[in-house]
């Protein structure tokens, strides 16, 4: 009997991007309930950091909604406002720069506007040929 080829596991952020594109609006708990297996290390803070970076570049907006939990300030509800494509945006560890592998461009923070956006040549220098799927 031939052994079946094992599928590689997709990254947490890649899976989160998939469900966010499908559902458009989700709380962090919804995202975790859909994609987490319970074995991930600090999935909550990982996703929170990533979503915060997406909010900073205007792909996602964040509002506080009532979660019905006693003594809770509510939970963050994330809404996808700009769907850049099927490949998940990559947030660089250094400086929190967000790279969009669909357009091969670095997304500028919304507060700074496009004036500060690096040109295409700068972009290639920044990601310097590193794997783009490293999420």
């Amino acid at each position, binding site marked *: 009997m031939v052994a079946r080829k094992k599928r590689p596991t997709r990254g947490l952020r890649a899976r989160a991007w998939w469900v966010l594109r499908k559902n458009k609006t989700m709380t*962090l708990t919804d995202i975790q309930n859909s994609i987490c*297996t*319970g074995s991930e290390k600090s999935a909550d803070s990982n996703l929170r950091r990533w979503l915060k970076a997406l909010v900073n570049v205007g792909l996602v907006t964040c509002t506080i909604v009532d979660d019905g939990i006693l003594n809770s300030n509510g939970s963050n509800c994330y809404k996808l406002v700009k769907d850049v494509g099927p490949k998940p945006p990559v947030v660089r560890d250094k400086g929190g720069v967000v790279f969009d592998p669909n357009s091969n461009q670095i997304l500028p923070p919304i507060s700074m506007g496009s004036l500060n956006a690096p040109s295409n040549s700068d972009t290639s220098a920044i990601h310097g040929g590193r794997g783009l799927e490293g999420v």
Partner: protein
Amino acid sequence: MKSHFVKTSNYQRFLEFLAAVEGQAPKEGRIINVNGEPGSGKSRTMDHVGADRNAIYINGMPGMTVGYLRDLLAYELGCPGGTRLQQQQAINRAFSERVPMVIFDEAQHGLHKKAECIEFLRCTCEQVGSVLVLVCHTSEKHRFGEHKLAHISTRISAVVEFKQANLADTVLYFNELCDITVDSAVAQLALTQSKGRYRLLANACRTLEDIAQSLGKSALTIDDVKGVLLCEDAMKALRNKSLSQKAGN
């Protein structure tokens, strides 16, 4: 309350069928129909499986056409633009490289014009042996078996009906997500009140944690929650409230 996906009996059954279809069904018959009542976990399961496999997700809508589907597939596979022929060739190439699973939600919207949209997806999937999952509400499932749609119905290799949670699912759900321990009698009470709907089970889980906190306990028995409403359908509660207000007037 913890937050992660719970592998319920519905999910396990879906995976069994999926493995069987992927491994044994002929390429032209790799279609699975998933149906179920609201709250039975269809969407959550599709989210989990789809995200894990990077599936192509298509949300069915009234009036959708083959042209729309071709454009959508091309966009999702990163090969938009060009003539129809070029687009189809690019889609076929991408399919043969990736062999993606395709999830067609609200699949009943693909049934008009002799199910030409589903037929288009079937042809595209068939070439590389991709699995096509057709998701619909229970009330729509009979439409896939109509005589005039025999070209589709004969190729559906598996029909997976998602059912409301049973006691084993409820116990598993509480064991995995609840921060406190509950016995099976409490699980049975939550199951009865929620009628097996997972959305309401999550509410019951939170209520149980609140009760345990107020009692200073880390485990609850049926005596602690006797007569307590653990969860309630929000819309039903609203209806009851307005009815009682009318009666009061």
